[in-house]
């Protein structure tokens, strides 16, 4: 019955060749070129100790033979040096681990009462406090660090108030120290942990608690033995998240770490930009990625399969604790915690409109000159930021839309995995990998705005994908089939049907990309050519030069832009935190 199939001619095969398939290879190529190969070459360099030009090996046999020679000299020597006692790298790793562990433990302990207050009590001014408890994460850390200097530095106003009150001399504590870094990170990263913990407290099964109380347990023992253990997975996962964030943070340590304090991100930065030490920078990069990956994996493990397991279909009305004896202390405590970040930003603001300020509670006078300065002399930086951020946005939108399409519709799990790798690559690590890979011909891109844009796009890709994937999943597949049935190719369907339907997710995601690119420092400092210096780099350089007034004005501008865009994005996705 079945007739022998006629083989389709070459022309037919070409015509039926799915244009989407080509796009899929293009996307995979993009990730290979700008993510996998840079990471691979850093890994190789960490053994060879000398730069390996992977792209060169493909086009130039001479380079290939040099590379092979270098590969033959590869050894564990550099790693052995790392673990020998007294090595700079080892102390950098130890210090970074210590910093991140301390920060995550302190954050969790500090957030416990606040999370409980938001989830389970009728604390007064809850909405205002919730907004204030979200604000810190939108402030770039190098600006928070600068704010700390304005407050607690030797000439800071808090130091002044403290000294006048107690009649003492000198700083309360040295901001340029481990303590200073810890404080900045704790008070500006805590929202990352707070909101997941609030969620964990909210969904831990209330009926179990009721049962406990019903069996005669006092409310405090219910809290300790029932509520806390139920919220524990949420807390552990938050702690691990804070660890990763703190470990890869570059803004705080680069401003506040004193010469004697070695931290892995700062050390890596110095190795590459100060000494051009390829081996050292690569080893530190490999270690950073491994540590971040381990903690990221642990965090997944802590939340995996749990979904806080006790969510039942029946929504239960949470009975909020409204006892004044509970809510008032919680309110006071929460206000005190948010007071510090609020004052920090406020100090930056005052600095930006001060004529001279130092060794006093208030500035001598107020002026808008600094803003006039940045809007006349630094318009280039503002334009650069906009152009770079827009470029990164365009790349992320296209790649993320395609990735979510392939992952959701064609179940491309490997692509999903590759696209989420940037989550575990700290900015400094990506910057170092890029410099090493694109330093020489045939793909000499270091020092171009293009490479910087690609680096931004890669770094923000996982977040963009999360945003687009959500709206992709909401589109039923038969809508696409209908379009194909009506004569449109898969590619045209993607442009005319899928794209427009995904628009809200794409817009929200791209605003967030824009925001984070404007805030970004680590990749910027490593990769930005001077003629392309964006706002964040200008602030950073001015802080280092001690030009705090213009730096503050620009910082306030950044915060303002970020705040407005973030609000727009939240409105679009309608995701409220409380």
């Amino acid at each position, binding site marked *: 019955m079945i007739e022998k199939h006629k083989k389709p001619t070459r022309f037919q095969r070409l015509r039926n060749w799915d244009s989407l398939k080509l796009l899929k290879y293009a996307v995979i190529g993009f990730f290979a070129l700008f993510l996998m190969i840079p990471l691979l070459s850093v890994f190789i360099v960490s053994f060879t100790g000398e730069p390996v030009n992977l792209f060169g090996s493909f086009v130039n046999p001479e380079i290939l033979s040099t590379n092979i020679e270098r590969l033959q000299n590869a050894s564990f020597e550099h790693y052995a040096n790392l673990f020998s006692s007294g090595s700079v790298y080892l102390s950098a790793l130890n210090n970074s681990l210590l910093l991140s562990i301390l920060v995550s433990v302190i954050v969790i302990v500090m957030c416990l009462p606040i999370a409980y207050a938001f989830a389970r009590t009728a604390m007064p001014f809850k909405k205002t406090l919730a907004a204030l408890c979200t604000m810190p994460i939108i402030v770039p850390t190098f600006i928070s660090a600068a704010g700390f200097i304005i407050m607690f530095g030797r000439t800071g106003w808090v130091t002044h108030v403290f000294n006048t009150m107690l009649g003492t001399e000198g700083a309360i504590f040295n901001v340029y120290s481990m303590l200073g870094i810890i404080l900045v990170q704790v008070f500006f990263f805590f929202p990352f942990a707070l909101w997941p913990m609030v969620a964990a407290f909210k969904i831990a099964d209330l009926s179990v608690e009721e049962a406990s109380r019903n069996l005669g347990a006092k409310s405090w023992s219910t809290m300790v033995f029932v509520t806390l253990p139920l919220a524990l997975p949420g807390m552990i996962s938050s702690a691990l998240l804070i660890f990763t964030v703190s470990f890869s943070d570059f803004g705080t340590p680069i401003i506040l770490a004193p010469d004697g304090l070695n931290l892995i991100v700062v050390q890596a930065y110095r190795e590459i930009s100060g000494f051009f030490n390829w081996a050292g920078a690569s080893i530190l990069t490999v270690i950073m990625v491994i540590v971040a990956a381990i903690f990221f994996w642990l965090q997944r493990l802590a939340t995996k399969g749990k979904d806080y397991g006790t969510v039942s279909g029946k929504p239960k009305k949470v009975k909020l604790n409204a006892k004044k004896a509970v809510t008032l202390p919680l309110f006071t405590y929460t206000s005190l915690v948010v007071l510090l970040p609020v004052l920090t930003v406020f100090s930056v603001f005052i600095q930006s409109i001060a004529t001279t300020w130092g060794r006093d509670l208030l500035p001598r006078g107020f002026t808008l000159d600094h803003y006039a300065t940045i809007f006349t002399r630094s318009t280039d930086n503002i334009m650069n930021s906009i152009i770079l951020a827009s470029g990164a946005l365009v790349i992320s939108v296209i790649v993320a839309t395609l990735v979510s399409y392939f992952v959701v519709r064609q179940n491309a799990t490997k692509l999903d995995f590759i696209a989420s790798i940037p989550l575990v690559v700290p900015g400094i690590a990506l910057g170092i990998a890029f410099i090493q890979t694109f330093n020489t011909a045939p793909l000499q891109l270091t020092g171009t705005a293009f490479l910087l844009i690609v680096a931004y796009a890669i770094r923000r890709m996982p977040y963009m994908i999360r945003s687009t994937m959500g709206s992709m999943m909401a589109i039923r597949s038969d809508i696409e089939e209908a379009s194909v*049935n009506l*004569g*449109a190719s898969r590619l045209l369907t993607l442009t005319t049907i899928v794209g427009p339907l995904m628009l809200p997710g794409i817009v929200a995601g791209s605003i967030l990309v824009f925001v984070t690119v404007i805030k970004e420092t680590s990749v910027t400092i490593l990769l930005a050519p001077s003629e392309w210096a964006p706002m964040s780099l200008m602030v950073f350089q001015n802080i280092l030069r001690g030009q705090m007034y213009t730096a503050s004005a620009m910082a306030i501008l950044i915060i303002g832009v970020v705040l407005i865009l973030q609000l727009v994005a939240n409105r679009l996705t309608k995701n409220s935190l409380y």
Partner: protein
Amino acid sequence: MGSVTVKGLVKQYSDVPALKGVDLNIREGEFYALLGPSGCGKTTTMRCIAGFEDITEGDIYIGAQRVNDVAANRRNCGMVFQSYALFPHYNVFENVAYSLTVRDLYRGSYGKRVKSFARLMSKKLGKPPKELYQKVMDALQTVELDHLAERGVGELSGGQQQRVALARALVMEPAVLLMDEPLSNLDKKLRNTMRTTIRTIQQEIGITTIFVTHDQEEAMSMADRIAVMKDGEIVQQATPTELYGKPLTPFVADFVGSSNIYDATVIDGRQVKINDQFVVHTNGVTENGEAKVLIRPEGIKILREHSESRNVIEGKVTMSTYFGPNIRYDVNVGEATVVVEQEFEPGIPVYDQGDHLFLHIPEERVLLL
């Protein structure tokens, strides 16, 4: 317009066979229903014809053209989806215009292509050409929705959405119209109206139509011919009358209409003993031995008094149910249960649980399967 021929269609999902060799011969202009329980492969068959599934083996022809290697968007089959799958970001007019605009985009002059693409992205970017506008409005008129052309599809009722989906499929003048359970999302009353609408439009245009459904009533009332499917195979292809009157297997008999199906022993070719309980005569001729017997409930007559004629048996009512315009009795005859359906008319005697009655089963109503 065109016929549809399917030869030895096999569809394999990794290890699980979904279709095990399906043969169909659908004539031009025919209204053809694929009927079967869920998971029988009827939707898969349709999706293979539409080109949404890669076929493992076999051939599909639309008209004279073998379409195995033709991409889904070049097959020219209009499909109406179960969920309608209307484009939520387009209004009614744009939904229906989609296929024509896409056609212009691929085939027109360069200026036309650019304009078509612009219109697909937003209706603000240009007006549709007159000819296209007229075609779309004609299609909307066919489904009586021309007055709602500028509405958003979200503002329409289920029945209206259904009609937009139909107009959208028809406007491209497809060779075949495919409908996947198109009525299952409508309420019963609307379903009956839509049945008539669809059938009328199909007759007017004379388009070859393949209709997938699990509802035998729907298939029987609309289709010219029906293929009953089970476990990836076609069990019987026939007209509704044939299917009802001469089902080939107990499965078909049971699926199409309600039925009494019994294990029976054939005595001397013309008499059967049912369930070892009672003996009836039959027209059907078969060899002695074991057989399956089908008696349609509405073929059985209820007698008030005993009659000496052939095929009259006595029974006792165990349950009586009102069933739409019919009354249904479950009657115990010995240890066998016979279901009887009688049209309700004023003045006929109604029996209650426990009542005795006599049943007359006409010989031609005793079918041997």
